């Protein structure tokens, strides 16, 4: 799995958190700049693209409000992803209550994936994008956290509320399915 470079990222985050606690507001800016894009990408991959800016902002606001209690047991990014995921789930629940949508995971990701084709210039990228869009929500989430964000299976398990072993299985099943979809 990932080795030295992850450790250096965590050290920088810890340093910035400590500086912020000591009153350096620029450290807050640095922390947001380091993680905002990844959070937006993750939130978008969960099907909340239109609300990504709002969810990302809410994530950081909640995180900074609790930063005094962040123990560093997980990486800061993993913690941020966990907060963002909960916010997305809450949004879905509220949407379901308002619109009586049948299932938390029945967000029409396939439609959204088709609609976003136009943002991808490369035909090959569009094909892969479409193939990933056909994955189940759980497989897609695990697959993208591993490929896009480089989270370990342990970190993925912490974010998605599953086990390390299950995350590994989901990843390899997803990869196999994407390959099959591309060969169709």
């Amino acid at each position, binding site marked *: 799995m990932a080795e030295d*470079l992850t450790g250096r990222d965590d050290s920088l985050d810890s340093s910035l958190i400590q500086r912020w606690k000591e*009153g350096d507001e620029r450290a807050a800016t640095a922390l947001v700049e380091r993680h905002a894009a990844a*959070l*937006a990408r993750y939130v978008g991959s969960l099907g909340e693209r239109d609300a990504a800016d709002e969810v990302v902002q809410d994530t*950081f606001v909640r995180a900074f*409000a609790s930063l005094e209690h962040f123990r560093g047991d997980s990486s800061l990014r993993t913690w941020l992803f966990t907060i963002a995921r909960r916010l997305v789930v809450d949004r879905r629940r509220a949407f379901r209550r308002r619109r009586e949508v049948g299932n938390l995971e029945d967000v029409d990701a396939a439609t959204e994936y088709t609609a976003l084709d136009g943002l991808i210039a490369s035909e090959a990228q569009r094909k892969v*994008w479409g193939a990933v869009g056909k994955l189940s929500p759980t497989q897609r989430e695990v697959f993208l956290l591993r490929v896009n964000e480089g989270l370990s299976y342990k970190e993925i398990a912490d974010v998605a509320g599953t086990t390390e072993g299950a995350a590994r299985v989901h990843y390899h099943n997803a990869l196999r399915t994407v390959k099959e979809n591309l060969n169709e």
Partner: protein
Amino acid sequence: MSDCPNVEIRELLPDYLGGRLSDVRRSEVSSHLASCQDCAEELALLQLVRQAYEATTPAVNVSAIVAALPKKATRPVMRSWRRSHAFQIAAAVSFITLGGISLAVARSFFSVSPDAALVDTVAVNTVGDTPISFAGGLSDLGDDDVEALITALESIEALPVVEPSDPPLSGTGRQGS
């Protein structure tokens, strides 16, 4: 596209792509990729996934996010701080008022000029007539005035420290949870 049987190398491909491997591990993976078509194709697939998602990353306004963050409190937030310390403030003001009256009495006792003593007494009575000195009630104090008052009060070691959850100094107040 088939799967290479070398699971260890395949598990490292996402980290190889993200530049998260040590030099030694990166070299191992590079050597394997040079001779394994399956892993080279899998790496290319993962690369396409990353590129596709980077192209569709929703935009976020970093400045707006930073502006919305709670500020690291180096000074008390005056509105809620004032509310939570209202009892302490009131007790301290009473203390100052009583102290001022005592000072006026002492000065009048030692004063050479009866007129000066009278002026001091009148001034202290004015202070004592209103719960808070300067412009009326406690709520009329500006944040800077309250902060200055509290700063001065905190320098008086005789003042008790009362937190909202602590039992009140007097017999009134709600029970702690």
